[in-house]
């Protein structure tokens, strides 16, 4: 457990020192929100029904940028081989990187959500705890798959292109259910209906995190 924590802390330290990933994620996410704000401006009151989709497009695109950087930093100077030499199950590396990726994405999501509130002139109060729950579960699912695929893509020449090509088809169930859950919270407030999308997202996350944990060693060995 302390090895997972050490990897998480190391990634945090590097990110807070360089701000490479978060800056790119936030910049890109805000640009997406601004473009949608102009495109949907004529909808007026109905814009609220479009916000769940807009939010998750912004989250997914900015999250992909973060995932691209996740293992790129380990390729510089062969740091990845240093990580792989740890005298423990290499799944610890997967979990440490996944946690770091999830943390950065949640920070970006918080900022992007506030930006969306301002841009789309939304008011939320009681919805916030439910939205946080959906964001956390959705982001865990996104990064559970994304961390493994990022590790695969980093050893290829076309990693920036390859990652989204592999990632988006696989995470479609997460994105669809996250959009649906966000829509229920923002537009119907029928919180009982959240059970299905949250269950699907949780099951997806557990299954893919387990598979990724088990496959991780195989993926990184030549």
């Amino acid at each position: 457990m302390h090895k997972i924590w050490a990897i998480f802390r190391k990634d945090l330290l590097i990110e807070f020192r360089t701000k490479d990933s978060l800056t790119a994620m936030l910049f890109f996410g805000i640009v997406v929100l601004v473009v949608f704000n102009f495109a949907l401006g004529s909808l007026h009151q109905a814009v609220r029904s479009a916000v769940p989709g807009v939010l998750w497009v912004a989250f997914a695109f900015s999250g992909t940028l973060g995932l691209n950087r996740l293992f790129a930093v380990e390729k510089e100077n062969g740091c990845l081989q240093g990580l792989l030499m740890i005298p423990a199950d290499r799944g610890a590396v997967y979990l440490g990187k996944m946690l770091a990726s999830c943390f950065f994405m949640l920070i970006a999501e918080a900022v992007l959500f506030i930006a969306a509130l301002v841009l789309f002139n939304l008011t939320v109060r009681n919805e916030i705890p439910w939205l946080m729950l959906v964001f956390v579960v959705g982001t865990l699912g996104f990064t559970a798959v994304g961390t493994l695929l990022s590790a695969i893509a980093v050893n290829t020449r076309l990693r920036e292109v390859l990652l989204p090509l592999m990632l988006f088809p696989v995470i479609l169930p997460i994105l669809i259910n996250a959009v649906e859950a966000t829509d229920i919270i923002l537009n119907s407030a029928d919180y009982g209906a959240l059970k299905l999308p949250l269950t699907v997202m949780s099951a997806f996350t557990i299954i893919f995190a387990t598979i990724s944990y088990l496959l991780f060693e195989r993926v990184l060995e030549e």
Partner: protein
Amino acid sequence: MIEARNLGKYFGRFAALNNLHLTVSDGEFIALFGKNGAGKTTLLRILAGLSRPSRGELKIKPSRQAPPGAVRGHIGYLSHETSLYMDLTAVENLRFHARLTDVPSDDRALAMRMQQVGLAGRERDPVRNFSRGMQQRLAIARAFLHNPDILLLDEPFTGLDSSGCDFFKSFLAAAHADGKTCIMAIHDTRLGYEIAERLVVISRGAVALDAAKPSLDYAQFREKLEPLLA
């Protein structure tokens, strides 16, 4: 003890290793020679557990049946690359590695390591500001922080100045005297001959020459080596 039997590693149709046999007893110091692409680095990466052989059998004491990852705790691997994070300070790099390898990570222990490699006083400097030689010194401290039994070294003198070379030669001599097994890939024939006690030449992915140093003087060794490097 390391025992490699019939080891093969293929990248597509290219055979980086081809029926390689090598047995290394505990405490031996082996220098691996061979021209570029002979298979030295591939062999070291397989021994380090970073690469999986395409065929053959590899046994490393403690056996591979040990709990997952346990054998890696007995191996220290110093490669061409430093495996250092440029945006962390020297001591942060060492502390991170110490935490991963379960060795003391307090300031005092790490400062002692820095002193051992001649970097005392530079603990708080970002690695980005280090020269190549200083990075190599820090990489040495990082790779062997957990006091491994088996040292795998791939061109370890790269980037070191003359005082750095002297320091590292004495480091290796002390490790050897301490009973550690050392396998070092090196292009500098004289330096390799001087340091090691067993000389192994790899050619086309297989062992082409395996001799104990006392059986060959340097001139005889060069004579045998030249055709294999051609």
